């Protein structure tokens, strides 16, 4: 398990709890388990550059998107785009907190707008993300389902 997985897990859990009122369960037995291919999911990715370049991705099962987004927006009648945007915002906030924690508080990063796409039903649409091993990854069990967070640096770094 990458040595910074606990930090990634802590930050992701805090963001999910604070912004989406998610209930994070105790550490699962297999935190590195891959996303079940048969389960439709939503994946939000945030590209970043600056002190380091790479991508952070947040994947949650489709079934959890509605509840998490409803919690964030305080509305049950959100549009599909609003629900997906909410997951993108979670990824954005996780990324904004993970990078300085892992790579230095004085470092400056530029985060691109989150890209949100559906995975699980079709082969991974982003081949780069599918083939590049993440630098650090974690999986959280939630009352609403699960969440997988992966941080991939384009160049090796002391992470």
């Amino acid at each position: 398990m990458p040595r910074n997985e606990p930090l990634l897990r802590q930050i992701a859990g805090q963001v999910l709890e604070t912004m989406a009122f998610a209930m994070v369960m105790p550490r699962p037995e297999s935190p590195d388990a891959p996303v079940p291919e048969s389960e439709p999911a939503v994946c939000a990715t945030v590209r970043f550059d600056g002190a380091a370049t790479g991508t952070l991705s947040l994947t949650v099962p489709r079934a959890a998107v509605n509840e998490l987004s409803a919690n964030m927006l305080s509305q049950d009648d959100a549009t599909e785009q609003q629900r997906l945007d909410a997951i993108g915002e979670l990824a954005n906030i996780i990324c904004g907190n993970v990078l300085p924690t892992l790579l230095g508080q004085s470092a400056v990063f530029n985060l691109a707008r989150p890209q949100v796409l559906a995975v699980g039903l079709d082969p991974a649409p982003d081949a780069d993300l599918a083939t590049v091993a993440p630098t650090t990854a974690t999986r959280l069990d939630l009352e609403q389902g699960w969440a997988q967070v992966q941080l991939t640096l384009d160049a090796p770094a002391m992470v």
Partner: protein
Amino acid sequence: MSLNVLLVDDSSTMRAMVARTLAMSGLSLGAVHQASNGREGLDVLDREWVDLVLVDINMPVMNGLEMIGELRRKPELAKLPVIVVSTESSQTRIQQVQAQQGVCFIHKPFTPETVREVIEQLVEGLEHATE
């Protein structure tokens, strides 16, 4: 006294989240206006009475720092309280924000309690300054 608030963020989702957090904070709120960038925010300020602005940093057309600079140049808005709400964690950039007069910073993720505390401190500080 109810606060009339302006939320400025290019993400409608984030504006909804900030509005939700404000509603949960227990503060007495009046009108809650929204804008998707700094230019739109300034347009709102030209026609609406606003007591507090919550603004993101990174936005198209006009970003948060540019908007703050513009409104500080207007005599009638020079002392308008502003809170920057951002994921920004670079101490350099945060210090640039906080160096602006009458500007506070709230880091995402945020709780209703944090938002309330920052707003109360900011408003209280301005009330003391005008006494």
